[in-house]
């Protein structure tokens, strides 16, 4: 019994690491640029395909291809901000929602046309391996993904705390008007924030590839949880999103174990509703940080 619980918690934490990368991306864009990016899952999907093709044509390990997928999606993020998002800022919520929602549908259907609906898998030497500790097992591919996801989140945290650009982002997130008065160029800050956010999505895609099949709709599986984590962890709060993601991974896993395999999400949403009832602004409370 105890082993089953420990195993469920481990499973939850490991997948929670992936949820975290996706949700931190969403919360970062929301915090800084004040736009909800519904297409975040599709950028995860693009990251997956980048790693898949690099692996199948050049034999590059998906973890190594992080070095390609992250910069590539960072550039996509800069362009996205410059050519699309910038045009709808200040036009109210509706144009922004429609923009990213349309982008999501467009990317998904382009992927369907270009890559077909077939599932694509990558097999690495560690894909199906696991570390066994008595009755407990820890899948190697997921463990690597989790460790790298935490390292990337940590790096982002340090970047936001210590660098000028990071501080400028946090300033823009807290009080955009004052930030501008202090001489911060909002367009540059917004572009970098979107770039970093998409780079995280790309990283999630590459990290998933050794153990999850790529398909045009793969991003959708992760983006729902990411949105819940963003709300649960207080909109725009990076640390909140990280902690909420891990909590949700564990809640989902325990829910499947003890409630039912088709009710894992019920536990997650129950947790969300309870949190919103008790702390309406999310776990982290205070607001964007």
């Amino acid at each position, binding site marked *: 019994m105890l082993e089953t619980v420990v195993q469920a918690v481990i499973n939850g934490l490991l997948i929670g690491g992936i949820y975290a990368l996706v949700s931190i991306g969403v919360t970062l864009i929301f915090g800084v640029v004040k736009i909800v990016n519904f297409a975040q899952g599709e950028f995860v999907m693009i990251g997956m395909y980048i790693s898949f093709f690099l692996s199948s044509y050049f034999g590059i390990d998906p973890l190594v291809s992080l070095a390609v997928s992250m910069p590539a999606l960072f550039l996509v993020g800069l362009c996205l901000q410059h050519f699309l998002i910038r045009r709808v800022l200040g036009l109210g919520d509706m144009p922004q929602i429609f923009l990213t929602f349309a982008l999501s549908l467009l990317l998904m259907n382009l992927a369907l046309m270009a890559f077909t609906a077939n599932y694509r898998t990558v097999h690495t030497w560690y894909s199906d391996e696991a570390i066994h500790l008595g009755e407990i097992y820890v899948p190697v591919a997921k463990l690597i993904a989790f460790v790298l996801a935490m390292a990337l989140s940590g790096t982002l945290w340090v970047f936001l705390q210590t660098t000028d650009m990071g501080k400028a982002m946090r300033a823009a997130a807290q009080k955009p008007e004052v930030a501008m008065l202090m001489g911060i160029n909002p367009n540059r800050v917004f572009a970098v924030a979107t770039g970093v956010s998409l780079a995280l999505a790309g990283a999630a895609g590459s990290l998933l590839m050794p153990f999850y099949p790529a398909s045009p709709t793969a991003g959708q*599986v992760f983006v729902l949880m990411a949105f819940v984590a963003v709300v649960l962890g207080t909109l725009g709060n990076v640390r909140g999103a990280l902690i909420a993601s891990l909590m949700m991974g564990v809640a989902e896993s325990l829910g499947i174990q003890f409630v039912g395999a088709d009710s894992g999400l019920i536990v997650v949403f129950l947790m969300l509703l309870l949190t919103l009832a008790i702390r309406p602004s999310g776990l982290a409370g205070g607001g964007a940080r």
Partner: protein
Amino acid sequence: MKKSQSRKQTKSLRRRDFLIKTAGGVLATAAFGAVPLRGWAAEPVNIGALYPVTGSFAQIGQACVNAAKLAVEMVNDAGGIKSLGGAKLNLILSDVQSDTTVTRTETDRLISGNKLSAIHGCYASALTLIASEVAERAKVAIITGSSSDMLNKGRSYTFTPFARASQFAKAQLQMSKLVSDKPKVAVVFENTAFGTSTSNGLKEQAPGEGVEIVLFEPYSAGFADAGPLLNKVKASGADMLFAVSYLNDLILIVRTVKQIGLKVGINGGSGGFVVPDFYKNVGSLAEGLQGVAHWNHDVDTNAQKVNSEYKKRHGEFLFEYGGGLVAQTFMLADALERAQSTDPQKVRDALAALDVSSGYAAMAPGGKVKFGPDGKNVYGHPVGVQWQTADLASVFPKEDARAPLMKS
């Protein structure tokens, strides 16, 4: 420079070849179509083929068309329908687009626009049910490998030479006894119509087969991680796992079982599990996994012959539905031979009287085809299969087994 020139030349040669052939073909069909020259060359027999070549079933639908074309070629190369003066079969294809509404209109259009002797189709049961309704009304026989038991209810122009859905569950349960005498089975199934109906069939028949179901777990399709679900399977102490799942979830389940090091046999059922694509995705992890099929390419020597020809053309083994489709075409040829007519009613009556136990028409598990009043093959039963060295081998029941069960 030279190289590119020569390439250009071969290309244009090919194009000329192609034009000549097409023109010849067009002229030939025009000639036959305009003036039926009885006695000089027999009028071709039109067979309608309804398959989803676009939409969600596109990939498998196209493979069905490939098999249908191969079958017609085989009949024609062997001299066509002798009682009709060596008449050739003429396949009239129609794309039902993986859509029930389109299936209805396309079946109507196909029947009213052509002088058909019979029809076959449509791979997916949901589509075949519609096509069968239309064919019944138009009084044209339809022969199909679709497994829905509904196709045998109150119909007299619908013929199903292969195992029915209800028989698949029974075969799966019996196969679990190959693994242990008192099998403890965990059933995990995706919680929509497909998963619930299939798994309920398993649950109902389990006590009768002496199989204990220790876990009966619905899940929502498209999960991010199969770990939690399989943690449950592990805790249940099952030694056999039935997964009623779509391909994506099945891939994750198979890979996670390996990671856990769970000692459990897996039966993935039918459909997407018994096609070459499954192996492409799962690779060597597929080895030893069990499934059920209404046809397999090792059932007899004829099937092996057809399989090697199909493999030569398309680079992968002949899958369940495609192989059954070749047999069906030969059943139609047998009926036409005896009917000595292209009249759909006479073909239907000859098909109802079909009784074969040799040749390509009989390549089915059991090797015999004879239709009961409900259009069901009275000898029809599924075959249990197992992935062995990147191929599907028949392992169950004993009389159909072509390879021993690989114990994992």
